[in-house]
């Protein structure tokens, strides 16, 4: 066998293995969610007993799940908006301006990103109960800043460093102030990076389980991950496996779509601008 052909087969196998690694669990949970209630325990990988959408219709019939979905979307979106706004400003300064304390901001953000959430949920639980933030949207949005802001600052500084310096200097030579250079020149160039950082931050907020479990108690603010953990199904007697699977698929699909659309830039963001798209 000529070398290139052998190499091709080898890479095909390697790529095949990676693809299977990524998608088998996804296919499994989709398959489980489509099984008929009687087939849930048939231990087959695929829904060979026939497909049914009963699990989906039943979760959308309960306000428990639909409210959780709205809470998840709303809380993650608002957290993303606030943290990206604040992080863009800080990241611009870090990437473009000369000032002391730059390293301190980056390492401080990194330190806070490493912060264990369990260390603050207890005191937030106590504080939120006494000031009325328990089981509210702001009650989750505020603690989400502990991880969305550092993540935003990090990925955005990486993206902003990739933007050509010369344009900003050119604008300043033409008489623009640093602020004008920021809003008129850099911001339009930075938009794709900002969008990608927003996707990443949104995924992190969407993923949170600990804060959502501790700081909420009703469907006024309980998000999907926390709802899923305590999901009992429509009746006490029904096994919730099928419904949990269906709900799991519903919250997974939008993320997969987002990730596939932004994959190139997400990789770049995660590897701090080391990969040139």
């Amino acid at each position, binding site marked *: 066998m000529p070398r290139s052909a052998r190499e091709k087969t080898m890479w095909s196998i390697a790529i095949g293995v990676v693809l299977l690694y990524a998608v088998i669990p996804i296919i499994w949970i989709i398959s489980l969610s489509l099984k008929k209630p009687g087939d849930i325990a048939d231990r087959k990988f695929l829904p060979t007993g026939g497909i049914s959408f009963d699990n989906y219709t039943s979760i959308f019939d309960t306000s428990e799940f639909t409210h959780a979905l709205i809470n998840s979307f709303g809380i993650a979106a608002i957290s993303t908006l606030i943290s990206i706004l604040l992080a863009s400003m800080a990241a611009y300064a870090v990437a473009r301006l000369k000032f002391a304390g730059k390293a*301190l901001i980056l390492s401080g953000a990194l330190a806070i990103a490493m912060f*264990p959430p369990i260390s603050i949920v207890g005191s937030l639980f106590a504080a939120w109960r006494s000031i009325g933030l328990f089981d509210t949207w702001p009650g989750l949005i505020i603690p989400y800043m502990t991880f969305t802001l550092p993540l935003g600052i990090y990925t955005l500084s990486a993206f902003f460093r990739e933007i050509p310096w010369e344009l900003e200097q050119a604008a300043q030579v033409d008489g623009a102030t*640093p602020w004008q250079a920021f809003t008129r020149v850099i911001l339009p160039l930075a938009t794709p990076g900002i969008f990608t950082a927003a996707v990443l931050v949104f995924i992190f907020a969407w993923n949170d389980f*600990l804060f959502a479990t501790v700081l909420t108690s009703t469907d006024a603010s309980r998000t999907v*991950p926390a709802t899923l953990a305590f999901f009992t199904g429509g009746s006490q007697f029904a096994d919730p496996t099928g419904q949990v699977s269906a709900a799991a698929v519903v919250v997974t699909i939008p993320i997969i779509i*987002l990730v596939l659309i932004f994959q190139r830039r997400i*990789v770049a963001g995660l590897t701090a601008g080391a990969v040139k798209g």
Partner: protein
Amino acid sequence: MAEAAVDRGAQTATAPTKRPTTDRAKAERRLAYWLCAPAVLVMVAVTGYPIVYAVVLSLQRYDLRFPASRGWVGLDNYIQVLTASTWWKDVLSTVIITLCSVGIELVIGTLLALVMHRAIFGRGMVRAAILIPYGIVTVVAAFTFLYAFQLNTGFVADLLGYKSDPLTNTTGSYAVIIITEVWKTTPFMALLILGGLVLVPDELHEAAKIDGASAVQRFFRITLPLIRPAILVALLFRTLDAFRIFDTPFIQTRGANGTETVSILGYNTLINRVNLGLGSAISVLIFIAVILIAVLFIKGLGTSTAQQRGEV
């Protein structure tokens, strides 16, 4: 922290090579501080305030079931936690999960990164595919693997031929938790290592090839030393992340079969037993443990990350 930043700024501002006393430099510095201030203040407030409050709570007898008996007890809560075997058992199970999952992730992550870096076709496809586990909600991944492995719903039992539910014994529970963690977070490891791989100059490989080095030799002699900083950073991130593991064991075992992690212990004490004093002591201890791990890592790796930064 914000004050510290300003202090440092004031100290070093007089030192730099080209005295930044021009109006433009001053304006630039002022703008920088204004741009950073909101983010810095919010970060300090949302983490600083709750952690200080946690320390305060940890020094009190404060059980929500007996609010009347609230009072200062000094370090009693810490002594109670540190002298109980539960804490140390949970530290051990957390360390086991951390070491196993991070170790396996390092190996698979490096392989994945090599596939993404060297594949002669389909790189984009692979990159897109491995982002799927990364993007998936941890709770969803935990349920997916729970349902796949548990005896009454899962297809894995027939595949591997086991007859008793893995989630009813210690080894099985650890295995399922670790497999879930590895599946979910290896992509992150792989992408960080890929970030290091793209910095390895191709010429080195070409030269070594001409000198007759095999692919394996080239990996261990050229690639590995050069991507060491990237690997160390990935290990640091993942170790700290794995040490605070909560979602997966909570969903899959609720801490049963000896898989209770320190985060689950903290949760149970704070939320189920509503013992805010004792629970806060556990919270603060976890915080200190994470700082210790980070300091150890950074001390050990400081030189190589500094080198990498110098190179970039």
